């Protein structure tokens, strides 16, 4: 894997879930959180997973990230089983999770440390580049508490993308932002994806968000999450949040979320 700063130098990953299930067992109870389900995200694909609150969407991302291990089935990245968290799979969390003891620039440069041969100056240069990409140039020396919610998530995006992960896992990253900020970030995330082409798994319960961002929408059932339907999205990009086709698709997703669990026969 190259450490060259140019975007898209590392190939995006292919993510496969084969019959994956997760059951949480404690002393007093056991909870089926997920599956079994199978799913594949192609190289560079933007897959949005939509499901009701508490359905196990986050568990699914945690399995791919390597924070949890599946109770059954396999999680594969390019055919190799996931053995734990690693820099090939970046994650964006609900809260920005930026490090408050570092400046914005040092946050974005944080993941570049893994490239041992990269000089400090080169790391800073790459971090600058990614800050420009998320329109945060000028805030390099700011500390996290000085940023607004939207700026924090932009910085978190830059930090995740700077080390050139091969996949990006997003766990409702815009959930706690105000509507205006969120809508701007939809446009920016689409731009970023067009440039970086990271394979992306994006979890949300917002159907319009799903319609706006996805190459493919995967609708999940209530816990334990199973795939109830899959909708490929062929609308041209960049998509406007208020585009009537996006609205129409969002309604369709909502109908499938609400309706009885209807498989549409397509392979996930």
């Amino acid at each position, binding site marked *: 894997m190259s450490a060259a700063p140019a975007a898209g130098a590392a190939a995006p990953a292919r993510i496969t879930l084969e019959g994956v299930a997760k059951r949480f067992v404690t002393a007093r109870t056991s909870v089926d959180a997920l599956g079994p389900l199978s799913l594949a995200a192609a190289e560079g694909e933007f897959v949005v997973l939509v499901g009701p609150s508490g359905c196990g969407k986050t568990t699914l991302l945690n399995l791919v990230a390597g924070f949890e291990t599946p109770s059954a089935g396999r999680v594969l990245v390019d055919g190799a089983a996931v053995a734990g968290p690693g820099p090939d799979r970046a994650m964006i969390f609900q809260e920005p999770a930026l490090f408050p003891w570092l400046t914005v620039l040092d946050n974005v440069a*944080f993941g570049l440390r893994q490239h041992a041969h990269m000089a400090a100056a080169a790391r800073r240069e790459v971090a600058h580049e990614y800050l420009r990409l998320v329109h945060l140039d000028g805030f390099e020396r700011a500390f996290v508490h000085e940023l607004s919610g939207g700026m924090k998530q932009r910085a978190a995006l830059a930090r995740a993308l700077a080390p050139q992960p091969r996949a990006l896992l997003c766990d409702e990253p815009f959930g706690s932002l105000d509507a205006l900020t969120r809508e701007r970030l939809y446009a920016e995330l689409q731009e970023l994806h067009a440039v970086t082409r990271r394979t992306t798994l994006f979890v949300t319960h917002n159907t319009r968000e799903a319609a706006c961002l996805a190459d493919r929408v995967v609708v999940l059932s209530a816990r334990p999450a199973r795939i109830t339907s899959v909708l490929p999205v062929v609308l041209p990009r960049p998509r406007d949040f208020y585009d009537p086709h996006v609205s129409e698709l969002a309604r369709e997703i909502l109908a499938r979320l609400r309706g009885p669990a209807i498989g549409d026969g397509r392979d996930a």
Partner: protein
Amino acid sequence: MRDAGTARRRPLVLLAFLLALLLAWQAVWSLGWLPSYSLPSPAQVGTRLVELARDGTLWPSVQASVVRMALGFVLSLALGLALGVAMGLSQTADSCLRSLFLGVQTLPSAAWVPIALLLFGLNDAAIYFVIVMSSTAAMAIATADAIVHIPPVYLRAARCLGTAGPALATRVALPAALPGVVTGVKLGWTLGWHGVVSAELIKSSVGLGYLLHAGRELNDAAQVVGVMLVTIALGLVLDRLLFASIERRVRARWGFAPGAARG
């Protein structure tokens, strides 16, 4: 609500309060309820302090106590942080040390002095020992708690960014725990200061504790009260100047203080 006006008035309010305390002290003395050898007047204390400063008794003692404290504290800090990190990261270390440290913490500083003298004899090593035993446990427990309560999302984010092993401790866990650690270190400083003065009370020929002891031996109440005031003032100044400002800055940057968002 507090506003800018009350903030500006705060030093004045404090000054007025201290003045009132001084007046009350003077009044109690003037009423003559207590014999003059047990309660000196503010003026007597002031005069005695000036004498102690003039005849070269006070400054070497202040210096001795502060230097002992600084050395003992550095030792204690290093030990406390190392043990605290170990406890924070290892369940085994925590199980072994936590109850022990909580127990040790219940001992007053002065209770360490006899064993310190037996172990180290009549020298400064005994004083350092008392400082370390007084303050290390509190700092270790605070550090361990701060590490245990790190938001897990910081560690997850770091692991996704390729951080593992010792780097996870030094580059993420420790800085993430800093606000709690700073609070523990501040407490440790106060406890260590107790330790220095306690140890000097019993064994020393110079130092604030020694001056207190000497004052009692000579039935010099003015010296005793004067040196107590100096000890309080020094402790307060070091706490305010050193630790309070660090703590405030850290808490603000870590997002514990409101009103800093730009957005």
